């Protein structure tokens, strides 16, 4: 599966690549990274016909994760990409807003990679 990870922290790339070493090596997952909401939209437009899962942080400078989610859900209707938002525990407000905007699932910070893998498997 192609997974687009959106986070303003550059080291997220190294982290995912190590956490999913086996899955990347076996070709089970294919990760693409974008370090801002804007960059994520650009990446998305370049790979229009692929089925993608988007994993996005919320707190980012410039375009926030919520704006990104809103744009994706409005502009990409066919096929609709699955969007998982990463929020902090107790952050009910962002959670509710994201739910309203059509987020498909949630992950909480700090990321539980075991849970993420389980979720990816059951998708």
């Amino acid at each position, binding site marked *: 599966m192609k997974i687009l990870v959106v986070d303003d922290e550059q*080291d997220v790339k*190294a982290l995912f690549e190590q956490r999913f070493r086996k899955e990347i090596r076996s070709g089970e997952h294919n990760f693409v990274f974008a370090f801002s909401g804007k960059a994520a939209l650009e990446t998305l437009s370049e790979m229009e016909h692929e089925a993608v899962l988007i994993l996005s942080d919320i707190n980012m400078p410039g375009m926030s994760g919520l704006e990104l989610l809103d744009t994706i859900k409005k502009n990409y209707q066919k096929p609709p990409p699955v969007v998982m938002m990463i929020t*902090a525990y107790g952050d009910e407000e962002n959670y509710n807003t994201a739910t309203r905007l059509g987020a498909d699932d*949630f992950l*909480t910070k*700090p990321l539980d990679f*075991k*849970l993420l893998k389980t979720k990816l498997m*059951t998708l």
Partner: protein
Amino acid sequence: MRALFKSLIILACGLFFNHLSAQPQAVKDKYQQLLKEAKSENERIDVVNFMVDYLKAINVDSSLALALVNIEDAKKAGYLKGEYWATKYASTSLINKGAYVSAKKYLNEASEIANQFGDSALISNYFSGMGMYYGVQSMYDSSAVYYKKSIAIDEARKGDKISPAYEMLAISYQMQSDFAQAIFYQQKALNNAENLKNDRDKANILVNMGNTYRNIGDTVRSEQAFLEAIELAKELNEKRIEMYGYSNIANLYFENKKYDKAYANSMLAVEMAEQAGEVSIGAASLSKAAQARMMQLKYREAEDLAILSISLADSSHQPLTIYQTLSTLGNIYVAQEKYKKAIPILKRSLESKKEAGFYDTGLAQLYKDLSLSYEKTGRYDEALLNYKIGVQIVDSVRRNENIRKATELTMTYDFDKEKAANQVIQAKKDAAEKTRQLLLGSGLLIALIIATGGWISYRNKQKANSLLEQRKNELESTLTKLKKTQTQLIQSEKMASLGELTAGIAHEIQNPLNFVNNFSELSNELIDELEEERAKDVKEKDDSLISELLGEIKQNLTKIHHHGQRADGIVKGMLQHSRKNTGEKFPTDVNKLTDEFLRLAYHGFRAKDKQFNAQLQTDFDPGLNILKLVPEDIGRVLLNLMTNAFYAINQKKQMNSTDYEPTIWVSTKLSGEKICISVRDNGNGISENALGKIFQPFFTTKPTGEGTGLGLSMSYDIVKSHGGELKVETEEGEGTTFTIELSDFD
């Protein structure tokens, strides 16, 4: 569902299953082995009966099928006792399925066999079976009659040394909701274990007793028993018993709505289950933890836990566990009104429940949840269909539940009576012992009588004095309480501002910390892999992989260092001043302090209210001198004033959302010999009425529970203690400015 699930846990705790281990595969293996080892047909039939008994709580249909085969085999072998147990177990399974007519048929046969065999233990067991049979069908009088018959036989048998392990009997009574008998035998078993100094058995029995007490609603004794069992298990390093202790006490806490404790103990059970390789209990405990979080409305955490529990339950291949974990997730979705997501989960849950062969209120609830989910997603036909099935099940099951409870109540009563009788006997024994001792010391007794006379008159005076003393103590304790409350209130204001600080710092520090944790954990894994590669012999060794791994480890260490430094910088920058709360003055850069606390206050406020947004305008006077002050105290004043300002503009924003720009201005200025720090907002201002009271302790305009009313009063005191002034200017509808004036000398 709950009652049956309970019994599953109880059953799994039993000593018998510690011999066999509670894991299904292990049980099956042991079963096969025992079958092979059986020296005669009779022994083989006994082994099959054990399996029937075990399956009874896990898969009713398999248990029943196996029992029916075993009845025929026992008949052929002419083995009456084996035939009895198989027949009896078949009847119990039929009762659990609600097939009362067939159940009665098998009970009648069991009665015939027991009488033919002439064994009082079997006859007693048959009677308790009848008690259960009538009990679950609302026929309370008949149920009591049979239970009493059963008890009477066992009482009479007490002198014999017939009984198999007491705890076995206790488990079987417990399975039949005969808790009085269960406790009775468990108590005996406990004494036995104590006499034999067998701590392992003792710990096991304590877990079972905890469950029995829980079933009769004796929370205190139940908790005590579990805690004692856990302690003992820890000492013995018996992970499995410890696990059962945690998982059962978690159920107790859950039933008593102590959800934090239920969660904590469930997670401990999960940890133990992982160590003991108990997949099924691990999954059930994760699911219980999820339920606890759900009850606390922490849905997201609950959801994550439930998802993990399902994947664990799947690998256990136990339909009952799978059902339990799925229904938990279903409930969590329903509670959040995510009906679309709930439907497939509830349906899968239903399948597992049917596979396990249970027919109870839990099943009915599933149909009802499903019906609700269909209704909310507009699928009305399916909603109606499922609703009807649910109602049917409830009707047939509810009568049984009610009466089972009634039966339990009488049993408790019987148990109490019995306990009271025992106490009387013990008291008589004690009295006899005392008399004997008194007679021995009769000389001493006479001397004592003389002394007592003088003591009585002294005692009367004492009484009057003690009454006065008591009043005095009462007053003193009221005063102490008041003082304590005052201290607590001040503390709670401090904690409130601490909460704001923490939220701000947490926000800044979370990311680097996550990286440190992740990269260090990953490096550990990389080193494991490296060692594996290094251990290979020369031919197979892949040098390029080794250098690749080394490179990655080095890269990770650089990242750990980088993010550690980043976190360090944040802590140093933000809390440089607060070292310890010594109340000592330090030379402080006021501009820096103000700027840092503005960021903290902003993040702190945003952490509470995500929608909040404001313009921050700063104007710091570069000509300010370094000032000696208590940074954490002045910091707290700043935090207070800023948080108040944010609160004010947020209130106003919520009233007129369109053309209002919520803004706060923070400035420092050197004016003559004074340093002024002001915090200005364009909020609603303070009414004239309130203005006179704002520095009074406990005055607040915030809704109850939101403010302590101590913030400004404490701020005022802090500024005063620095020899400064705290001033306020306000205009209703326009905004407020607070100014801290500090003198430049020290």
